[in-house]
C-alpha cells in the first residue's frame, strides 16, 4: 500500500509541475490549473489510503472547509480578489502551522531534523497566517491602508525574531521538555506576522501578497520535512520559488530591492521630493473631454487602483467600444504594480471582456507615447508620476513608469487633488498638456460614453 501511495505522490508532483508550467501561458493557463487540481485530488485520495486515519473527523473537516472555500470563491467580486487570495493564503499557512504542532503532540521526542522542521513550519506558517490576515484587513479596508509606524518598530521586530530563534534553538536541542517554548514560538510568530505587515502601505500590497504566497509555500515545505513527505516538499518548494520570482518582478517594477522588502518598514515614505512643482491645474468638463476624444485616433487607458474602487471597468470597456467604432485605436497600458495585487488590472479588464491583446506593458507603449493622442489615466497616480524620471530627490525616483506626460493630451480622472498612496505630489497634474477630469471615475467615463451615444444617435 505504501508503494501505491508513494507512486501516486510522484504522479501528483509531476502534475503540479506541468500545471504550473501551463499556468505561464494564456492559451494553456486554464487547463494548467485543472491539471494541478487533479494532482491535488490524487494526493488527497492517496493519503486517505493510509491506515489509522480518523475518517469521521476528516469528513467533517473536508465538508466544512470545502463549503467555506467554495462559497467564498463563488461569491467574491472580481474587485475584491486581492483580499480573497490573501485569506486563502492565510488558511494554507495556518494549516501548515497546525500540522507542525500536531506532529509534536504525536511524538514529543522527534529527532534533530524533524524538530528543526517543526520549528520552521510553525514559524513560517504562523507568519504567513497573520501576515495574510493583516493584508486582507488592509485591502478590505477593515483597518487603515496607511503604514502603521511606531517608535522603535525595527528593534521590537528584531527582538521578536531573535527571541523566536533562541527559543527555537533550545526547543530543537531538548524537544521533550520544551512544549511551553514551542507554544511561545507560535505566539511570537503570530505577532511577528502582524508587525511585519502593518508598516506596509496599501500601494505596496502586490509585493506583500506575493511574498506571503511564497511564505505559505515555504511553510508547506517545512511541514513536508516534519512528516517526511516528498509531495509536500516538492509542491511547497515550487510555490515558494514561484512566489519569490513574482515578488522579485513586483520589486523591480517598484524599483525596490528584495532585501528592502524582507526587512520591512518599506512603503513608509518619510521624505518627500524637494523639486518645486510648477504650472497650474487645468480642470476639464466631460463635454470638452468628449470633443478631444472624438477627434483622437489613438487612445491609451491607464487604469489604477481607482478604477477598482469605482468598479469602472465595464464603463471603460463601453467607452473603448465607442472609441473603436469612431475609428480610434484603443489600448490599455498596465503597470505591473497597478492595483493591489500582481495583475489586478488585467483581471478586472478581463471581467469586462477586454481582449487581452489590447493590454500592453509600459515598455511596449513608452517608446511611441508621442504618437498617442489621448492618454486617459483612471485612478492611477504613482505609476504615472513623472517625478520618478525627473526628480532625483523623489522617493519614487528610478521606478519605471508609464510616460503619459509625453502623450499629446492626458486626461487624469480623479476624485480630488490628494496625492497617491506613496504620499508624493504628482507633477503630471501640473503639466501643460494635462487636463483634470474631477469626479467619480465610473460616472465620468459613463458620461463620456453617453456623449458618444448621443452623437451617434443624432447622426
Amino acid at each position, binding site marked *: 500500500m505504501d508503494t501505491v501511495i508513494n507512486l501516486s505522490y510522484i504522479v501528483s508532483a509531476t502534475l503540479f509541475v506541468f500545471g504550473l508550467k501551463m499556468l*505561464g501561458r494564456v492559451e494553456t493557463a486554464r487547463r494548467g490549473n485543472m491539471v494541478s487540481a487533479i494532482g491535488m485530488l490524487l494526493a488527497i485520495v492517496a493519503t486517505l489510503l493510509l491506515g489509522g486515519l480518523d475518517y469521521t473527523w476528516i469528513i467533517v473537516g473536508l465538508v466544512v472547509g470545502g463549503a467555506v472555500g467554495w462559497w467564498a470563491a463563488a461569491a467574491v467580486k472580481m474587485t475584491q480578489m486581492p483580499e480573497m487570495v490573501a485569506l486563502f493564503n492565510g*488558511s494554507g499557512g495556518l*494549516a501548515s502551522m497546525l500540522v507542525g504542532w*500536531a506532529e509534536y*503532540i504525536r511524538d514529543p521526542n522527534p529527532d534533530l531534523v524533524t524538530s528543526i522542521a517543526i520549528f520552521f513550519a510553525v514559524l513560517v506558517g504562523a507568519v504567513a497566517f497573520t501576515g495574510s490576515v493583516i493584508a486582507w484587513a488592509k485591502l478590505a479596508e477593515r483597518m487603515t491602508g496607511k503604514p502603521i509606524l511606531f517608535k522603535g518598530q525595527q528593534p521590537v521586530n528584531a527582538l521578536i525574531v531573535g527571541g523566536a530563534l533562541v527559543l527555537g534553538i533550545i526547543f530543537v536541542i531538548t524537544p521533550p521538555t520544551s512544549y511551553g517554548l514551542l507554544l511561545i514560538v507560535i505566539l511570537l510568530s503570530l505577532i511577528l506576522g502582524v508587525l511585519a505587515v502593518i508598516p506596509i502601505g496599501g500601494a505596496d500590497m502586490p509585493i506583500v501578497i506575493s511574498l506571503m504566497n511564497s511564505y505559505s509555500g515555504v511553510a508547506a515545505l517545512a511541514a513536508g*520535512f516534519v512528516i517526511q513527505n516528498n509531495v509536500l516538499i516538492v509542491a511547497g518548494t*515550487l510555490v515558494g520559488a*514561484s*512566489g519569490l520570482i513574482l515578488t522579485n518582478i513586483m520589486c523591480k517594477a517598484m524599483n525596490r530591492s528584495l532585501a528592502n522588502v524582507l526587512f520591512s518598514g518599506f512603503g513608509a515614505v518619510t521624505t518627500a521630493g524637494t523639486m518645486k512643482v510648477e504650472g497650474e491645474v487645468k480642470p476639464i468638463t466631460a463635454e470638452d473631454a468628449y470633443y478631444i476624444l472624438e477627434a483622437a485616433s489613438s487612445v491609451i487607458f491607464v487604469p489604477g487602483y481607482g478604477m477598482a474602487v469605482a468598479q469602472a471597468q465595464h464603463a471603460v470597456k463601453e467607452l473603448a467600444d465607442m472609441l473603436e467604432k469612431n475609428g480610434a485605436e484603443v489600448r490599455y497600458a498596465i503597470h505591473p504594480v497597478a492595483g493591489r495585487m500582481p495583475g489586478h488590472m488585467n483581471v478586472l479588464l478581463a*471581467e469586462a471582456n477586454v481582449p487581452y491583446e489590447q493590454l500592453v506593458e509600459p515598455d511596449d507603449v513608452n517608446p511611441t507615447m508621442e504618437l498617442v493622442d489621448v492618454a486617459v489615466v483612471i485612478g492611477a497616480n504613482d505609476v504615472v508620476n513623472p517625478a520618478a524620471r525627473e526628480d532625483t530627490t523623489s522617493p519614487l525616483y528610478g521606478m519605471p513608469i508609464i510616460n503619459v506626460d509625453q502623450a499629446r493630451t492626458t486626461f487624469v480622472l480623479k476624485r480630488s487633488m490628494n496625492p497617491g498612496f506613496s504620499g508624493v505630489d504628482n507633477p503630471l497634474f501640473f503639466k501643460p498638456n494635462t487636463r483634470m477630469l474631477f469626479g467619480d471615475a465610473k460616472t465620468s467615463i459613463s458620461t463620456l460614453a453617453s456623449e458618444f451615444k448621443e452623437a451617434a444617435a443624432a447622426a
Partner: protein
Amino acid sequence: MTMLLLLFIFVLSIFLGLELIGKVPSQLHTPLMSGSNAISGISIVGALAATAIHGTFGTILGVLAVAFATINVIGGYLVTDRMLAMFKTGKKD
C-alpha cells in the same frame, strides 16, 4: 538516510521552481499567484495524516488543519478557474 533523500529532492525542486516560472506575461500574474497558492494547500496531506494521532487535542489540531487546508485548496482552485475563464481573445466572439 530518508532525510538526506528528502533534502536532495528539496534542492532539486528549488532549481525546478525557479526555472519553471521564468517569464510569465503580466496578465497571468494573478492566476499564477492564486493557482500556486492553491498548491500550497498541499499541507492537507499532512493534515489528513495528523488525524491519525490519538488523543483529543491532537485530533482537534488535525481536523482544524484539514478544514483550513481544504479552504485553501477548494477556494484557490475555484477562484483561479473563475478568473481564467474570463480571459478572452479578440479573435473569438
